[in-house]
């Protein structure tokens, strides 16, 4: 299907289109050098291994991790989060999560809670609260700490609106309290500065296919200095190309957590995506997206019948509803007009509850590097048509 005429405002789901160099490198891997890394030392196996190591090194640099071996490839953010949560938590632990968490945090923890393994509490992100401040967020966290609190999990940037959490301060707080700090970087990787070491993050979970512009099929878990292979249990066991005579997964980073064949073509593409982000600079990318957000907010804010949510936070994500029209219908009508958005609950039960969206959820427009102001204006025009009943 030809996408040239579509307006793609669903970058929070996956970035699209992918840059040409990402596509070319993904294909080149499959045609020129894509052996199976760690399954031999012939030319193609080693070439694949080099590309994978190159990507680890780029990601380590991008996210402030000193050792590339602390970059563990995963299928996506969700699988990275599952590994971090299930690998680090022990029976009886108490966990703190923000009230804006995605289901990729809420669901694994809910399952563990139902099984009687852990308990968790939600701390207020204060999204939409005019009194919001870092100090108040930390105070809210402090109130919920118990002697069994072992971990705090927070999204860095919400997938519903452009609110962000103060990672540096939360990391320092957790470090002082001896609490593990796990960050969901799904919406911030490639959009905001993140440094695992500086921010005292113990586990950063990121996708390759959103802000980092890579193909779907890869993400990563980046481990802080204090997490040892002994401390992080495995979720998946199997062949990893080393110590094949051992019955247990070796205690070696990152191979301990990379059983099975890695998605080498996706990783190869991700390499190029990270290079592009590095070249453009996350600050410039963020500023570009904020510019689109501001224009969209201005146009929608001036329309009767539009409700915006948490639009005081500027970034890549704008959430809204059209009064009297179900969100999914708005999404469908926009799609018929060639505009791609996501409607509904966005896999974020907690977030929608916190933002107070009605039944049916809301409509989300999320911007990326290939969007421009003309597209935002066309989008606003389409919404006006829908509101007029055209």
């Amino acid at each position, binding site marked *: 299907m030809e996408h040239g005429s579509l307006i793609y405002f669903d970058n929070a789901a996956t970035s699209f289109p992918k840059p040409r160099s990402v596509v070319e490198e993904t294909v080149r891997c499959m045609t*020129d*050098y894509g052996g199976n*890394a*760690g399954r*031999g*030392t012939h*030319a*193609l196996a*080693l*070439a694949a*291994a*080099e590309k994978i*190591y190159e990507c*680890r*090194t780029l990601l380590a640099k991008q996210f402030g991790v000193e*050792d*590339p*071996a602390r970059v563990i490839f995963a299928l996506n953010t969700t699988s990275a989060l599952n590994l971090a949560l299930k690998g680090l938590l022990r029976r009886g632990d108490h966990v703190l999560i923000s009230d804006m968490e995605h289901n990729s945090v809420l669901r694994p923890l809910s399952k563990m809670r139902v099984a009687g393994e852990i308990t968790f509490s939600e701390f207020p992100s204060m999204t939409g609260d005019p009194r919001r401040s870092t100090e108040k967020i930390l105070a809210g966290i402090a109130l919920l700490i118990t002697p069994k609190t072992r971990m705090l999990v927070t999204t860095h940037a919400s997938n519903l609106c452009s609110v962000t959490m103060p990672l540096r301060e939360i990391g320092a707080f957790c470090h002082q309290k001896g609490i593990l700090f796990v960050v969901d970087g799904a919406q911030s990787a490639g959009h905001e500065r993140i440094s695992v070491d500086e921010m005292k993050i113990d586990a950063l979970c990121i996708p390759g296919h959103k802000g980092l512009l890579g193909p779907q099929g890869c993400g990563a878990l980046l481990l802080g200095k204090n997490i040892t292979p002994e401390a992080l249990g495995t979720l998946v066991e199997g062949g990893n*190309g*080393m*110590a*094949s*005579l*051992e019955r247990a997964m*070796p205690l*070696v*980073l*990152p*191979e301990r957590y990379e059983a099975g064949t890695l998605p080498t073509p996706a990783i190869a593409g991700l390499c190029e995506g990270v290079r592009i982000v590095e070249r453009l600079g996350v600050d410039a990318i963020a500023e570009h997206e904020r510019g689109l957000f501001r224009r969209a907010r201005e146009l929608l804010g001036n329309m009767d019948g539009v409700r915006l949510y948490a639009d005081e936070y500027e970034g890549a994500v704008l959430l809204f509803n059209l009064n009297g029209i179900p969100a999914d219908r708005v999404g469908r009508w926009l799609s018929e007009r060639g505009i791609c958005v996501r409607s509904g609950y966005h896999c974020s039960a907690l977030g929608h509850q916190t933002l107070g969206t009605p039944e049916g959820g809301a409509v989300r427009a999320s911007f990326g590097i290939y969007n421009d102001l003309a597209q935002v204006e066309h989008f606003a025009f389409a919404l006006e048509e829908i509101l007029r009943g055209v």
Partner: protein
Amino acid sequence: MKIPRNQTPPRIIQERGGNSFAELGSLTAAMKAQEVLAAAAIPSTVEKIEFPSSHRGCVYGLRISAMQEKNARAVLTSARISVKRWNTDR
């Protein structure tokens, strides 16, 4: 097809004095060590160690010119990269 960096023609490595093998463990560990040595202008190729010290099977290491072994040891030690065993074929 671009020749991967690890496919160094064997004759260059095997010029004089034979080869040394640094047993490292995982493939990532071998690549990390290779990167460190490359920064010190010491070429190496990643290889599977034929008879690893641990008898665990499937262990990776680096082949280096035996003449470079002393330098390589110093560089790797300085980078806090632990080599499980050194072997030389002369």
